C-alpha cells in the first residue's frame, strides 16, 4: 500500500493548495527520516538558486558570491529592473549585504575595491538576480539567483494628491468586476461586496481587516459571458443598494441571507458622483482615457454631467493616479466615497479602492 506523503504542491498561484498526494511510496520511517535529512541538507546548500521571496533570493545570491573567489571588500552598484522598477527595497539590500558580511565580504564606496553590479531582471515567468563582479585584475564572475514572478508583491505607492484620496481596501488575484462598501445602520458593521467572476462575495471588517464571510453564485444567465459586466448601483431615493448585471437589476439584503430578486431592465450604466465635507454640491467622477496597458487616473469632475474633463498635467489636485486601468467606479451609500476597481499593472492583482474627497485648503 502506498503511503500518503506530503509533497510540494502548487496551484495556478503557485501557492500550496492541497498537500496529500499518492506518489512514490516511502517504505519506512527510516526512509522518511533520511529524506528529511537530505532535504534539510539541500535546503541549506549554498548552491541553491531557488528562493521563496526577493529577500531570500538576495541572500541566495550573496551566498553564491561567498562561495566564489575570496574577496575582502566590494563596491556595490544596484541596477534596477527596467521592466519592474522599484524592486530594490531596503529589506532586499539589507538581506544581501548582511549575507555578504556574514561570510567576510565588506561593502565600501571606495573605488579601488572590485565593483559588484547587482541587477534585477524579469523574464516571462521569473525574476532573475544577477551579480556581476569585476575584480582588480579584470576577471569577471557572474552569479545568478531566481525567484518566480508570481511570488512578488509590490507595495503600493503612497498617495500624494491633496484632494482626492484613495485607500486600498482589498486586492486579489481573481478578477473583480465591481465593488462597494456598506455599513449596517443597525449594528454599525462594515461590509465590502465584490462581484467576481459570476460570484457575489461578502466581506466583513473585523479589527480593520476584511474577512470573507460568504459568497454565492449570481443568478444564472441564458448564456455564459466572458465579461459579467456587473456593477453595484445605489438608488439614492430609496437608499437601496442594488446589483446591475446583464440587463437585470437585482435587490438583495446586504446583511441578510444572500438571495437575489431580479427584474429585467434596460438600464445600462450609471453616473458616479461624490460629495465632500465642505458643503459643496456633489461632483461627478470620471476616469482618464487610455487603455488596458496604461495607468489610469480618477478625475474629479464638475457639478454638471459634462464637467468631467481631463485636467491639465500640472493640475494634479483634481486627479488621482491609479496603479493600472480603472475597471469600474461605483457609488456607495456614503455620498462622500466611491469605490474604484483597478487592475494593478505591476502585480496583475485586482484592487478595490475607496475614493474620498477631502476638504482641504
Amino acid at each position, binding site marked *: 500500500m502506498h503511503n500518503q506523503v506530503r509533497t510540494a504542491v*502548487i496551484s*495556478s498561484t503557485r501557492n500550496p493548495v492541497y498537500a496529500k498526494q499518492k506518489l512514490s511510496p516511502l517504505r519506512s520511517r527510516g526512509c522518511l527520516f533520511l529524506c528529511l535529512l537530505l532535504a534539510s541538507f539541500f535546503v541549506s546548500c549554498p548552491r541553491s538558486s531557488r528562493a521563496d521571496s526577493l529577500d531570500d533570493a538576495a541572500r541566495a545570491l550573496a551566498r553564491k558570491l561567498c562561495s566564489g573567489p575570496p574577496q575582502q571588500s566590494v563596491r556595490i552598484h544596484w541596477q534596477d529592473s527596467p521592466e519592474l522598477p522599484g524592486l530594490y527595497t531596503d529589506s532586499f539590500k539589507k538581506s544581501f549585504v548582511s549575507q555578504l558580511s556574514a561570510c567576510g565580504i565588506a561593502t565600501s564606496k571606495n573605488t579601488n575595491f572590485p565593483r559588484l553590479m547587482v541587477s534585477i531582471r524579469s523574464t516571462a515567468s521569473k525574476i532573475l538576480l544577477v551579480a556581476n563582479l569585476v575584480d582588480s585584475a579584470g576577471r569577471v564572475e557572474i552569479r545568478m539567483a531566481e525567484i518566480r*514572478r508570481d511570488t512578488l508583491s509590490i507595495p503600493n505607492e503612497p498617495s500624494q494628491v491633496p484632494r482626492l484620496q484613495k485607500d486600498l481596501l482589498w486586492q486579489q488575484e481573481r478578477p473583480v468586476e465591481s465593488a462597494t462598501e456598506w455599513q449596517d445602520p443597525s449594528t454599525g458593521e462594515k461590509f465590502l461586496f465584490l462581484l467576481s467572476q459570476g460570484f457575489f462575495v461578502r466581506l466583513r471588517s473585523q479589527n480593520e481587516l476584511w474577512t470573507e464571510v460568504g459568497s454565492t453564485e449570481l443568478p444564472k444567465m441564458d448564456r*455564459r459571458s466572458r465579461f459579467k459586466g456587473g456593477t453595484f448601483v445605489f438608488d439614492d431615493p430609496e437608499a437601496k443598494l442594488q446589483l446591475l448585471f446583464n440587463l437585470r437589476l437585482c435587490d438583495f439584503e446586504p446583511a441578510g441571507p444572500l438571495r437575489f430578486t431580479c427584474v429585467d431592465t434596460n438600464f445600462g450604466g450609471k453616473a458616479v458622483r461624490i460629495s465632500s465635507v465642505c458643503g459643496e454640491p456633489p461632483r461627478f467622477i470620471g*476616469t482618464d482615457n487610455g*487603455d488596458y496597458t496604461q495607468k489610469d487616473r480618477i478625475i474629479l469632475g464638475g457639478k454638471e454631467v459634462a464637467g*468631467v474633463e481631463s485636467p491639465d498635467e500640472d493640475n494634479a489636485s483634481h486627479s488621482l493616479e491609479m496603479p493600472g486601468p480603472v475597471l469600474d467606479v461605483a457609488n456607495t451609500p456614503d455620498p462622500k466615497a466611491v469605490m474604484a476597481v483597478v487592475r494593478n499593472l505591476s502585480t496583475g492583482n485586482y484592487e478595490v479602492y475607496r475614493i474620498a474627497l477631502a476638504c482641504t485648503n
Partner: protein
Amino acid sequence: MPWPAQTKLAFLATLGLAMLQPARASKSPHYGGTLRVEMRAASVSLDPREWKAGAVESATDEKMGALVYDRLVGLDNYGRFQPQLATEWSHDVALKRWQFALRTNVKFSDGVALNSADVVAALQPLLPDGQQISASGSIVVFQSSVAMPDLLEELASGRFFVYRVQPDGTLMGTGPFFVAEAASTSRLPSNSSTAAPDSILAAASAGVNKSTHLRFRASEETWSGRPFLDAIDVTLGVPALRQLFDLQLGKADLVELSPELVRRAMQDNQRVWSSAPVTFYGLRFDEAQSAAADPKLREAMSLSLDRQTMANVLLQKQAEPASALLPQWLSGYAFLFTMETNIERAKELRATLPANMAAGTEPLRLRVEASGDLAKLLGERVAVNARQAAILVQVVNRAVQRTTITSSDPATGIHLFSWHYSSLSPRVELETMVSTLKFGNSNEAIVSSTDPELLYARERKLLEERRVLPLVALPGYVGLSQKVRDWMPARWGEWHLADVWLDLPEPATAQPGNANGTEIPAPPPAAASPGAKP
C-alpha cells in the same frame, strides 16, 4: 449643499457610462461582429504535430491554433500560471512527476466531452524524448527520469495544444472558435459563403493548409465563455503594403505590420502594437566550406558586423541589435552579452589568414535561408560589412535556391537564418535552437537544468565559439482599427482574440432608456494606442 435626493436611477442610466470615461466613446463590451484579419503567410497548418520548431511560419500557425485549441495551462503577463484545461497541478519533490487535474465539463466544438485520454493522445506526440504522459481518471500524469522544473513553461507555450484527431484525420479543439469555412479563393468578401459543406471542419490539417481564407466562428459551448466576436475572417497571403492600405481604408481590422511599414503606419495615426522581440536573425557557419571552419575568420566576420546600423537604419529602429541567442525577456541574462564591432581588429585578423581564403575566386558563400525581403537585405548588409574587413562574401538568395542541392553546387560557408521563439522555457528554447540548427557541439550534453547560471554558461560558450552570430531581433507588429477593443495580448506575441470585441455602430432603433443604445460621438484618439478600455 446636501446630496440631491431626486437623483433617479433612470436618469443615471440615461447618462450611461459615458460619464465615466468622457474622453473616449467607450461602451461596455458587447457581442457581435466579425473581425477581419489579414496575414502575410500564404498557408496555415492547424495541426500542431506539423509545426516546425523555430519556423517563422509556425508563428502564424500558433496564432490560428490558439483560436481553436486550448492548452492545459497559460501564463499571464504578470508571470502567473493560469488554469486552462487543467484546474490544478502538483509535482513531487524531485520534479520528475507532475499531475494535472482536468477541468470538468469541457467539450470539443462538436459537443463531445474532453477526457484525459484525449489529452494524452494529443500531447504525447509533442513531448520531447524521455517525457511520458499517462491518464488516470480525470488526472493526467507527466513523468520523466530527469527533473522537469520548467514543465509549466513548456505546456503554457508553443505547440502544446490539446486536440482530438477525428477518424478522417481532421482535428477538433475545445477553444473559443472553430473553423467554419476554409476556402481556397482569395480575397473573399466577409459575407460570402462559398465553402462546401465538407469544408466545415473543426480544423482540417490538409484542407486548411491550402486555404487562403479562413472563417472562424464563435463556439457557444466553450468552457471559457463565448467570445464576444461572432466570427473572425482571416485572409492569408496578403502582401505587407496591401495590409496597411486595407487597414487605412477600413477593409481590415487587424493586420500584421512589417517592420519597415511601422513608422509609416504611426505617422498615419494608425494604432500600432508591438510585442517583445520574437524573431531572431543570425548567421550560422557551415564547415562544408572549409574557410568557415577557421576560428579567426569567424572572429573577423563577427567583428565586422555593424548590428546597430542593421537595426537602426535598415530596419528603421524597429528591431534590436542582438548580442545573444535568447532575448532578454526570455532568459533574463541577455544584457550580459555584448557584440563588439571593430573593423580595424577584423582587418588585422583577416591579414593573418591566407590571402585566397574568402577572396577572389573562392568567396565565402552566404545562403539566405530566411524568407522575405528583410532577410535578403540583411544578407547584403553582412556582405558589405565583411568587405570592409577584406572578406569577400557572396550572397545566395533563397529565391534562386533549387529544391535539390547537387554535388556540383558550391558549398555554403554561412547560412542566414531566422528563428521564431515559441517556448516560454529558456532551456527548451535554447536546446531546441541548438539541435535544430546544429550549431552546437554534438558531443556536449544538453542542459537539462533550468539553473540560469548553467544556461548562461551554455549560451556564452556557444557565442564564444562563434559558430553562430546574432544579428538582430524583431518584435511582432500589429496594426489595429479603432473599433478593436480590449486588445490585451501577451508581450511574447499571443493575441488573445477571444477577449476582443468590436466597437460597432449602434443600431438606429435603440430602445429609449437603454443606455447602451445611446449614440456617443467618437472623438479621434489622441494618439495611436493599443487596446482600449471598455
